């Protein structure tokens, strides 16, 4: 007997478990920005690179780190090669490269001509080559992330600092900032999709934002609201107002139209999750004098002395359905849906919608914890809930990736990847149930 489906409009179905799994805890997985690959950070000091087409292990990156690899991030915008950054409990970050030029052609040739044998030599050529090490942190690196342009790499550590590195030329990294605002371990760093704006989440229960001001990186906002350690932070995708439920503009009320305009002016929002069992969404208050809709807000313009400061406010707490620490939250860049997972082993998927539009009346009236009111015009509802996704084990990370196997149903289809204490990375498809509303599609 599955969980009560009244308010749930999707189910998560298992598609594959990446094979073979690691035999120890896996921490985090990062889908490649343009190839059907995923890199997984493993506690056995390795990174495993799997195919999202065949769901099999392609490479194991070993020999670099002396302790757990905690975090991996692919450098975006690189042509002809793959560049992977790895952050480890050994306090160092590693940069790894693999030539991807004419990869497919090469493979075909080799398979046809070489046929049998020489597998060993080929593997060596095909492997990820260690390229350089970034030293500086005093204790475990917890997370690292490339900026969308690939210009910067941010790292963070138990030493309470966030470092920003810039790659001046191949393998020559310079430290351009050491940010020491947090009072505790920094658990996660994430970049804004359009701006050079960095967010960090911490053991001190806060989230901080930084940007460059006159050659110095400075804190521009402090997000205070979580009651316990903030484990993960992630920005919303670019221009989601044109992709998610807000893209359908016909029949919107004046208020709703204005809401969309304001959303576009403030830009991508921020999602955070915490030991306090909540997922929170934050947005930037649009500044006076910015954006095209700024002339008719009716609010007097105040010239701020600290022009670089940003005003980020908590928009909503998502429906609270996790019972233990939430380790990871991820925002789909295709649909705007959010997925979360953590210590209770559950995977939850949430969707935002206009508050006045209830799909079929089924969930109205009961004391529905799936619907959390917010002062805005929208609400988030849990649309899928899966218990024991990794059997009895904790889930350390969850994210969206483009679906690339031959069962793919559309260009834009996504899968959810969950990474667990059981050493497994699981691939899930989201199936819409045939009840309730069918919006747009």
């Amino acid at each position, binding site marked *: *007997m*599955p*969980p009560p489906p009244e308010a749930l409009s999707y189910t998560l*179905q*298992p598609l594959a*478990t990446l094979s073979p799994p690691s035999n120890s*805890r896996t921490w985090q997985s990062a889908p490649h920005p343009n190839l059907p690959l995923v890199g997984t950070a493993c*506690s056995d000091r390795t990174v495993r690179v799997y195919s999202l087409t065949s769901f099999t292990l392609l490479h194991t990156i070993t020999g670099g780190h002396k*302790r*757990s690899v*905690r975090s991996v991030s692919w450098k975006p915008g690189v042509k002809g090669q793959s560049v992977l950054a790895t952050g480890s*409990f050994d306090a160092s970050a590693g940069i790894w490269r693999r030539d991807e030029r004419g990869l497919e052609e090469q493979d075909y040739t080799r398979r046809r001509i070489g046929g049998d044998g020489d597998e060993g030599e080929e593997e060596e050529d095909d492997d990820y080559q260690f390229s350089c090490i970034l030293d500086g942190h005093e*204790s*475990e690196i*917890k997370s690292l992330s490339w900026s969308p342009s690939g210009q910067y790499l941010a790292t963070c550590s*138990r030493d309470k600092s966030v470092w920003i590195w810039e790659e001046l030329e191949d393998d020559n990294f310079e430290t351009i900032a050491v940010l020491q605002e947090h009072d505790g*371990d920094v*658990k996660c760093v994430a970049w804004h999709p359009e701006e050079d704006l960095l967010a960090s989440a911490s*053991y001190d229960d806060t989230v901080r934002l930084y940007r460059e001001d006159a050659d110095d990186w400075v804190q521009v906002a402090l997000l205070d609201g979580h009651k*316990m*350690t903030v484990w993960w932070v992630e920005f919303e995708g670019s221009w989601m107002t044109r992709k998610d439920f807000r893209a359908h503009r016909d029949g919107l009320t004046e208020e709703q139209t204005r809401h969309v305009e304001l959303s576009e002016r403030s830009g991508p929002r921020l999602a955070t999750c915490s*030991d306090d069992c909540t997922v929170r969404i934050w947005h930037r208050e649009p500044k006076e004098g910015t954006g095209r809709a700024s002339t008719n807000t009716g609010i007097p313009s105040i010239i701020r002395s600290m022009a670089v400061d940003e005003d980020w406010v908590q928009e909503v707490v998502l429906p609270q359905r996790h*019972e*233990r*620490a939430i*380790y990871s939250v991820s925002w789909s860049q295709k649909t705007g849906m959010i997925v979360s997972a953590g*210590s*209770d*082993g*559950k995977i939850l998927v949430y969707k935002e919608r206009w508050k006045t539009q209830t799909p079929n009346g089924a969930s109205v009236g009961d004391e529905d914890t799936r619907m959390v009111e917010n002062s805005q015009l929208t609400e988030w509802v849990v649309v899928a809930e899966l*218990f*024991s*996704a990794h*059997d*009895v*084990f*904790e889930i350390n990370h969850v994210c969206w990736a483009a679906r690339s196997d031959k069962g793919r149903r559309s260009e834009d289809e996504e899968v959810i990847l969950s990474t667990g*204490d*059981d050493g497994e990375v699981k691939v899930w498809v989201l199936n819409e149930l045939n009840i309730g509303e069918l919006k747009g599609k």
Partner: protein
Amino acid sequence: GLFHDLIPQYNYLSDPFDHPVSASDSDDDSVEDIDEQEIYDLISSISDPEHPLSLGSLAVVNLPDIHILPPTSPYSSISTVLVEVTPTITHCSLATVIGLGVRVRLEQALPPRFRVDVRIKKGTHSTDEAVNKQLGDKERVAAALENGTLMGVLRKMLSTCE
């Protein structure tokens, strides 16, 4: 047994990839036996890091401060073990190490369906909240277990178990 009525029969929910049902059944049997006394027995024999005495004999761990919480949903098979430890003195700097020893011992000895929460008993330590936060932080605990020096201390503490 204690959990018999709480553990869901529909095992397919626990494992979407359909392990044989018989395997799950035998798991259930072994879980039934675990009670507070058994948890106490697992941790009372841990040695204090600075005395040649066990945590049980020092009353650092006490049976009434051990709680087993059953799964909160019929769709979940995850139980929680909550252990509150009482440090010998309120400024005991080794409270974190003792708590870590208890957590590691239970995580190694119990089946993975148990979540282990170790806390300092309220009011018994000057910095109990800070210690609790550390003990509850999975990532810190994992990193501690990769620290050779600390592992040496823990191994010594746990060597008197079994």
